[in-house]
């Protein structure tokens, strides 16, 4: 779909109307939040200093953007070259994912304009959050550079584009290092709070859990996204992208199946090391098993079946199941099983405004993605650079 045809069509499509309403609501909430303070719009309190904005916007946002480093390293470092057409969509999603994570964070920070303080005023190097902040800031830059060739091709800035293109491998390696660090550091944030996080989710292996599940999330997100963008952006996709598409599914599904199985095993080891078998019988234990069996073991098996039977439909639905499972896990760690020891009237439930801001941020992400993907060479090669990969 080209810009001309868009403007000729009526702008009052259901998509545009709903998007418009959400953006208006988001603008109002933004004024409310920054004019009247965090307390005016959230259910956060002294017992529950972190809510949906950290649990979903930050933790889920970052893990679901893992598709960028997973795809670029699979293609450039691990030799899955034939899937190179999948790199750009994945990098774009990751870049926008991180960008909007940082934007969402502005709502949650008490004094967001001080965000650079840890790097320019005073550094708390013992803090896991310092680790996270530093890596996310650097990685956002890396992603910007990785994404920029698409924008530069669009703008016709050849020389700069070629210069950055030469850095591909270095950027990919740097991206993997930074992703490893902050994906795991996000889990490590909770290591300091053994008294607050339920023992079934608390583990000294939290960083490893977060990192391994990020790989599964990254692989699954690439598949899920391919599925979701297939229809609306079909005519923007090159034949090469489409031709590799099914094959990519089988490759990534196989990988995700193995990774999820490994994740399942280390989660079990986590229980064994802390000897928490007896806790599995409690209500929390059932909730834990629901997550572990229904959203880790099951998708691992389904992916394996899907690859074996070359069942595209099964693989697609499994990618959705996996992504939902990872979201459930991050919410369990940050909100649901966090502060489990508090009486129910002191527990946190997000306010509608918090949910509203989250929906607002996600909508902005989708709109921006659509804007870029319909204009820049994302799903296809720019004709002038077709042969160099």
């Amino acid at each position: 779909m080209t810009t001309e045809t868009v403007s000729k069509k009526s702008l009052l499509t259901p998509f545009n109307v709903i998007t418009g309403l959400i953006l208006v609501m988001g603008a109002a909430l933004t004024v409310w939040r920054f004019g009247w303070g965090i307390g005016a719009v959230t259910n956060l309190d002294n017992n529950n200093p972190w809510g949906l904005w950290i649990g979903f916007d930050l933790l889920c946002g970052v893990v679901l953007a893992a598709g960028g480093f997973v795809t670029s390293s699979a293609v450039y470092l691990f030799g899955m070259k034939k899937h190179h057409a999948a790199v750009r969509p994945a990098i774009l999603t990751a870049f926008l994912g991180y960008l909007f994570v940082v934007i969402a964070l502005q709502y949650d920070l008490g004094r967001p304009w001080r965000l650079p303080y840890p790097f320019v005023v005073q550094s708390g190097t013992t803090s896991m959050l310092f680790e996270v902040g530093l890596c996310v800031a650097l990685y956002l830059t890396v992603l910007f550079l990785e994404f920029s060739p698409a924008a530069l091709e669009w703008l016709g800035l050849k020389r700069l584009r070629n210069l950055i293109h030469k850095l591909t491998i270095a950027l990919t390696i740097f991206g993997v290092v930074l992703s490893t660090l902050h994906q795991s550091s996000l889990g490590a944030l909770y290591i300091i709070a053994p008294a607050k996080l339920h023992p079934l989710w608390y583990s000294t292996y939290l960083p490893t859990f977060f990192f391994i599940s990020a790989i599964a999330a990254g692989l699954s997100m690439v598949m899920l996204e391919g599925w979701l963008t297939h229809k609306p952006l079909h005519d923007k996709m090159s034949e090469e992208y489409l031709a590799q598409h099914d094959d990519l599914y089988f490759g990534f599904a196989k990988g995700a199946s193995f990774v999820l199985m490994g994740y399942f095993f280390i989660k079990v080891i986590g229980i064994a090391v802390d000897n928490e078998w007896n806790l599995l019988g409690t209500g929390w234990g059932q909730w834990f098993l629901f997550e572990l069996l229904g959203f880790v073991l099951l998708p691992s098996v389904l992916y394996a079946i899907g690859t074996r039977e070359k069942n595209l439909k099964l693989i697609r639905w499994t990618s959705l199941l996996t992504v939902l499972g990872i979201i459930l896990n991050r919410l369990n760690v940050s909100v649901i099983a966090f502060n489990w020891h508090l009486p129910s009237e002191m527990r946190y439930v997000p306010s509608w405004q918090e949910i509203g801001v989250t929906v607002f941020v996600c909508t902005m992400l989708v709109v921006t993605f659509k804007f870029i993907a319909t204009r820049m060479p994302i799903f296809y090669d720019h004709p002038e650079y077709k042969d160099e990969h």
Partner: protein
Amino acid sequence: MKRRNFLGLMGAAGVSATLATKAQAGGNVHFEGYPGSRGVLFDATRCIGCRKCEIGCNEVNNLAKPEKPFTDLTVLDTARRTENEAYTVVNKYDQEGGAPVYRKIQCMHCLEPSCASACFVAAFAKQPSGAVTYDESVCVGCRYCMIACPFEIPTYTYDDPITPKVIKCDLCDANIKAGKISVPGCVNSCPKEALVYGEREELLKIARNRIGANPDKYIDHIYGEREVGGTSWLFISGVPFSEIGLREDLGVTSGPELNSGALSVVAMVPALWPLLLAGVYGITRRTDKINTQEKADAVAQAITETQDKANSDMKAAMERARNDKEATVKREVAKALEEAAKAAEEGDVEKEEEGA
């Protein structure tokens, strides 16, 4: 461990010692506390729940007066926690068949504070005086310190859109350093001497003596001596600590110690990952190259083979053609000869016939 050793180790561990301009904020190794640092001993057997300490704290810190006056003791009927306007609160714990027990809570001033090791701008500092202080001027408002504090002490001014900040008891450090008071406000206003301010080492001795002199009256444990690595506030009680709202499942490991494992791995990733990945990339490229080479070789060989075959085919064909030609010529010659012979014969016969 001596402070000098401590800092030396910190340096060796490569953590904040060089970066932190403030007093040590909490690091990677176990820290026994600054020598001569001060704290407070709270004796739950002496506390009568009069809330005078709350008044004292409110006054020295110029806090807003609460809705219900401090003299209203019905406030004690509901469990309370520290709030923005109350750095300390006293709670009542009913006992079966006995008088209720009261317990004051405020920042414990941990020896190795979790809040300090959690803060990414090092806004908290464990002072040599014993106090854990907070510096509002750098605070970004991430509230990770509140997540990290095992005693759920720090509070946040959520309703302030411009200058929200973390709030907690500072052991009256600012006021004492300014010379306004010499003893914390709460300690000063306690009518029952349930609170004693002094050097932590001394407080531990006093606590041990009290327990030793009255073993039936006290639980044989000083809460805060080792909990989460030790705290500057110490508690002794006649009933189990978990019954007066002090968690006994916090363990003796400090926040910084919990973190140290994960932090040490952090250094490994940038050190090793690039090399491993570069290696993998190298292997991939090598494999690619070998593959390409093999492919090229195969193609070349195929070409040579085809060419050879073509050549030999050609040769064979030529040979065959030559042979064929020879054969044809021979055959033709033979044929011609035969025909000639036949013709001659026929000529003879005709002649004979003619002649007959």
